[in-house]
């Protein structure tokens, strides 16, 4: 979906000047910088507005370009933290996070106050404090952070629990030793009933310990059901995590299905046939059987295909492609294609993913072929990929659609953008490569038409593609070569001429009676002086080839005569003379069937060859002269042509033009490596992880883990909720060896903080009760909040009681 700012751009074509005007008329914010002293004065003020103004100036200085030094304000800013104004707090926290690393000692002074806020009555304040505390990059406080998270995990407000989940990541980055504790917290947060807490927990889990799938088992089904309600970022984490989980936990089962000769089955075979890997090895009778749990996952993410977030849609497509390509993937195709209407940047990345799916399952995209027509105004990245989709779809289309694609390609091959011309001609070549003989011929005739164009880029590229096509199936194209040779009269592009001459040379051995090679050479030699070096080199090569074939033919005749004269003699020398390997496309056979030619003609060929060599000898290009010398040496002895045959008539490898994206085929859908392609290296970019293979049957974790854990733990979760934070803190102090072992420093700091915290809490408690009562009066209107708040106030009381108890115990 287009982002709202883009659409509003369309809606407000005449952009509101009134707003701008209003802003200018309204109270203008002072932009003039103040001296440091004056800002400090503002910060020290007792007036909220002035403090806020000071803080704003400090933040603006901090973000300004180039940034101005603001570290000197640290003490003054910290002092404002004690002010009761809610408006200043976020700014102070922001400042703190920015400067914590630069001045850790001063930062530690603030920890005390932040910890107080952790037990504030307002959950937003608690969440913000937790977030800030975890964000301070001072490794010394990692244990404190861990404790704060522990407290946050059992907080009543989901906002705080969400903050706790996100803080887990920061805690582990700060100090890797806290990982075991953090994993415990995460296990608990994953069980949370509130979907956005669970979503954040999955996000954190995916960052910290994506391999600990044992934590996922008990919550697997619950998460599957919750995924629809999560926010997009939680959904993305699940969609990233669960394909791996599924591959590790659900072995691929196949069921034997008796072969049905229905049309559907045939169609399926047709699709399956195009699939490169696993499916292909399997028998067609086998159909994948989905584990019920896997099916639950696949079904529950299906509504996400209506998401406005393109990343979610591609992630769902990825899950379907790698987990259930035949059954679920078709649902994802339409939404994938719909991504083409997103903004350009997203469209481009989406196209890479579409091409990837298209390589695996081209047939699914047939109904959407019109979406991939190229527009003149498109960026190169976009049309390149669209061309690729069109060529990938081409073999699967019916005739009218193929006409459309070819017409499209032809149109763009006549354009003015040389890159686009080149790519379209290549695309025509790929189309012909992938289709049957009849269509291939159509492509060829299309290309041959292009040869007369005056655009040298087009002609050169078209010739190149034609050459590839002819080389791929030389036997069918003898006539084509003759047709091409006719074009030599009119063709201007040196590259195309050279290409044609080379082709004529390659075919000079075939069908000796009607061979045109010698004639072509005769005509070309006449204009030798006017050709470019590129073409001359090919003329010389052609002469050498024609002469060589001629010599070979004579030798054959001679040996045949000898054999006739002395039939007892073996045919050993003959086969040596006719050394061209069998792959050469039947040249050898034809040589043997050759009939004697008129002697005058043979002489002509020899003369022609000598003449060409002479021409080459006096060419200015030394490369050409060298070549001529090589040929002359090779063909010096008419009786021994073996070496020359090996060199000049060697079979040429058949050129292949795979689809450009074929090289990134291994990368997972949705990854950056896929977009970057070959530059990303063999194993993808740093941090790229391919999907694991399906787990072998019998090695998967027991499915019972999922049901036993799921129901059992959620029940036990409810009572846990009532345990107060203070009690848990105590329990942690006793139980957690990591905490004790971590030495004196943390403990003393904690003690020192605890004292003040308790004071603070008793204060806030009395305050809380007042506000709570007020709230209950007001709640008649807002019945929505009623239950939550009552719980909240009760919890608040029990919590502080707990803390008092804790104090007594201590």
């Amino acid at each position, binding site marked *: 979906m287009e*982002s709202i700012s883009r659409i509003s751009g*369309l809606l407000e074509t005449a952009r509101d000047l009134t707003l701008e005007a209003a802003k200018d008329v309204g109270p203008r914010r002072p932009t003039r910088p103040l001296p440091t002293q004056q800002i400090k004065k503002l910060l020290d003020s007792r007036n909220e507005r002035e403090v806020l103004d000071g803080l704003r100036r400090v933040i603006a200085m901090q973000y300004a370009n180039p940034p101005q030094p603001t570290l000197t304000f640290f003490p003054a800013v910290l002092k404002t933290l004690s002010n009761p104004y809610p408006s200043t707090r976020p700014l102070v926290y922001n400042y703190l996070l920015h400067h914590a690393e630069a001045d850790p000692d001063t930062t530690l002074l603030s920890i005390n106050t932040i910890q107080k806020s952790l037990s504030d009555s307002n*959950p937003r304040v608690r969440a913000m404090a937790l977030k800030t505390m975890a964000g301070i990059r001072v490794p010394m406080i990692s244990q404190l952070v861990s404790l704060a998270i522990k407290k946050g995990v059992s907080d009543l407000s989901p906002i705080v629990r969400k903050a706790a989940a996100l803080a887990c990541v920061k805690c582990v980055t700060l100090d890797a030793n806290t990982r075991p504790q953090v994993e415990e917290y995460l296990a608990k947060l994953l069980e949370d009933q509130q979907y956005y807490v669970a979503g954040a927990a999955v996000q954190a889990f995916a960052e910290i310990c994506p391999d600990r799938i044992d934590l996922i088992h008990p919550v697997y089904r619950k998460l599957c059901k919750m995924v629809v309600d999560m926010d997009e970022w939680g959904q993305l984490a699940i969609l990233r995590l669960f394909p791996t989980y599924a591959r590790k936990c659900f072995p691929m089962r196949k069921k034997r299905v008796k072969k049905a000769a229905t049309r559907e089955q045939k169609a399926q075979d047709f699709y399956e046939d195009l699939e490169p890997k696993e499916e292909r090895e399997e028998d067609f009778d086998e159909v994948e059987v989905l584990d019920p749990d896997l099916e639950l996952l696949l079904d529950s993410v299906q509504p996400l295909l209506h998401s406005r977030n393109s990343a979610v849609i591609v992630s769902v497509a990825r899950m379907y492609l790698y987990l259930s390509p035949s059954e679920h993937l078709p649902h994802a195709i339409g939404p994938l294609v719909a991504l083409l209407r997103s903004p350009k940047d997203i469209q481009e990345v989406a196209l890479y993913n579409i091409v990837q799916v298209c390589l695996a399952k081209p047939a699914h995209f047939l109904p959407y072929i019109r979406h991939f027509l190229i527009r003149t105004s498109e960026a190169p990245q976009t049309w390149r990929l669209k061309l690729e989709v069109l060529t990938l779809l081409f073999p699967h289309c019916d005739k009218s659609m193929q006409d459309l694609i070819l017409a499209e390609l032809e149109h763009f091959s006549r354009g003015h953008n040389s890159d686009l011309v080149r790519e379209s001609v290549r695309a025509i070549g790929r189309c012909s490569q992938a289709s049957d003989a009849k269509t291939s011929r159509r492509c060829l005739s299309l290309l041959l038409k292009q040869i007369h164009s005056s655009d040298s880029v087009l002609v050169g590229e078209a010739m190149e593609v034609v050459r590839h096509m002819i080389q791929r199936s030389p036997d069918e194209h003898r006539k084509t070569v003759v047709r091409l040779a006719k074009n030599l009269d009119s063709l201007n592009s040196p590259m195309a001429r050279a290409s044609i001459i080379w082709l004529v040379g390659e075919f000079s051995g075939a069908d000796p009676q009607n061979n045109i090679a010698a004639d072509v050479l005769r005509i070309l030699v006449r204009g030798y002086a006017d050709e470019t070096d590129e073409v001359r080199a090919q003329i010389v090569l052609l002469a050498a080839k024609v002469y060589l074939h001629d010599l070979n033919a004579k030798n054959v005749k001679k040996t045949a005569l000898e054999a006739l004269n002395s039939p007892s003699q073996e045919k050993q020398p003959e086969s040596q003379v006719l050394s061209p390997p069998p792959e050469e496309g039947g040249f050898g056979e034809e040589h043997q069937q050759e009939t004697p030619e008129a002697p005058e003609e043979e002489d002509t060929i020899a003369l022609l060859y000598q003449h060409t060599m002479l021409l080459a000898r006096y060419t200015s290009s030394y490369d050409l002269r060298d070549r001529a010398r090589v040929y002359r040496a090779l063909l010096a002895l008419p009786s021994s042509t073996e070496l020359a045959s090996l060199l000049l008539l060697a079979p040429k490898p058949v050129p292949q033009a795979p689809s450009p994206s074929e090289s990134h085929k291994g990368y997972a859908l949705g990854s950056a490596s896929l977009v970057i392609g070959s530059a990303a290296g063999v194993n993808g970019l740093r941090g790229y992880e391919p999907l694991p293979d399906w787990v072998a049957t019998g090695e998967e974790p027991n499915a019972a883990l999922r049901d036993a854990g799921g129901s059992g733990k959620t029940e036990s979760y409810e009572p846990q909720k009532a345990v107060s934070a203070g009690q848990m803190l105590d329990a942690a102090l006793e139980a957690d060896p990591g905490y004790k072992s971590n030495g004196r420093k943390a403990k003393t700091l904690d003690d020192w903080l605890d004292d003040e915290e308790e004071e603070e809490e008793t204060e806030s408690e009395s305050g809380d009760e007042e*506000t709570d009562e007020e709230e209950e009066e007001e709640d008649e209107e807002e019945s929505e909040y009623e239950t939550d708040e009552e719980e909240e106030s009760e919890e608040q009381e029990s919590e502080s009681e707990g803390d008092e108890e804790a104090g007594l115990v201590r």
Partner: protein
Amino acid sequence: MATIEALYIFDEHNNLILNNVYTGRPPPPSTLLPLYLQQPSPRPSLTYITSTSPPTLLFSIIQDNLLFLSPSSSDTEPLLVLEFLHRVADALEEFLGSPLLASRITASYDVVAQVVAEMADAGIVCQGEANVLRDVVETGPGVLDNILGKVGLPGSSPGLGATPSSAGILQRPQQQALSSQGSAIPWRRSNVRHTSNELYVDIVESLSVTLAPSGRPLAAFANGSIVFTSKVSGIPDLNLNLSTGGKGAGMGNRGDQLRSIMERVVFHPCVRLNRWKSDGAISFVPPDGRFALCGYEADLLGPGSPLTTDQRSAPKLDLPAHIEMSTGLGAAGNEFEVRLTLPSSTRSAAVASLQSSLGNSSRPGAFRSTSGTENKGPAVEELTVRIPIPPNTRNFSDIRPTKGEAHWSLVDSCVEWKIPSKEVATISSAGAVLRCAVQGPVSDEDDEAQDDTATNGMTATTYDYDDDAPSSYQAQSSAPASRSNGAGETTGRARVDKNRDLMPTAAMLSFSVKGWLASGLKVESLLVDTKKSKGLGAEVKPYKGVKYLTVSKDRIEARC
């Protein structure tokens, strides 16, 4: 890994205006910017920079002339980062006003810093809803008042948000306690109060049409977005019913009909998918303010229409403006012509669609003002034709439009033909015509030909043309007979061939039409479900407004 490492924003002159590091030690913006600018334009949205250590993936979007960059040192889902960048732009716009200007960002760093920090926590994206950020971001007193025109914001502006009936002294803490609970609806900020309750539906369709040289449409899509503006107190529960305007009749119930028009629909998370699937109604609790409710796509050729080349069976496309192009005209074949016609049939349809009205409105007059058009029917506005010109064109000897103005822009290498709105009405049924004569690059043959206007010449840019050998080949093949008769004819035909290289291959049409939708969709009704809504008095009847807009931005392309 799905962490955002940093966010850099640059203004239109590539000056850094925001540098926010989320996590890790990403390369500084001063290093990344030149590496990004090295790429040839248009720059890809994801580039891989190997000259930094470690190699960096660089994501970029451009919004309102601002460049947003985000580096990443490891493989991150590209779409996740790009979506995040778009959301940041949306959120900044929500707080700072539209359009997003560099000066606005630099003037309120305190708000920007909070918004940016709230959207991703240490690099993990955690909040994408701009509206909910309103609960979290402290804008302080008096910041938003002037920008939002005193709509009635709670929280930061005491006195406006709180109900006047509650005890004055306790207003503030109580308000905090309410908002602190967090909204029950993850996309709507809590405690919304508005003095005037208003609901607006804007449907924008952006056309994307490709016409074959024969005039037959190859592809025609309308990409629609429904933009919703909700300024209603409490938690309203709304039902938006659309109708297809007669299309797809006889295709099952209304939901089916609607779904046959609106294909590949995506929704804002607030929409209840079940209702859409069962009866085609869009039922939702909106966020506060303006948001994109829904995106869809309408195939104007009808789904599954044949792709035959037979022109008689070509599907009829109902567009407010059409262009045709013919090239290679004139004696030397160096002229081309673009004909623009405005079929009158669309106007009547448009009038019909304009007369759609919403039930239950206390003030029907409200539509008229919002739709912004008079009763005479929607007019085609901002009519522009752009013709991309091959780069080897030297000059235009003639540009003649019968209406409006046309000029050749060398920078964009295109001819732009603009027809002002007031002249649009005067276009007759025969249409308006633009005729241009092209001059190719200078070459030696110009002198030989001695032809005044006609341009000529083998393009010296294409390949070496030093000898006359190739030309002798050409002459032999193209007209061996005419050589003796008259050289003039040969050169004339050759010139036409050569001028073919100078002919444009496509023309692109842009326009906007208010009050008309290409897909024929209409808003049938917009109802507030009073039973499910909360905090909205039964007697309150919000204003409702609807606006239709169809635009094409270079997206109607006629080939030749």
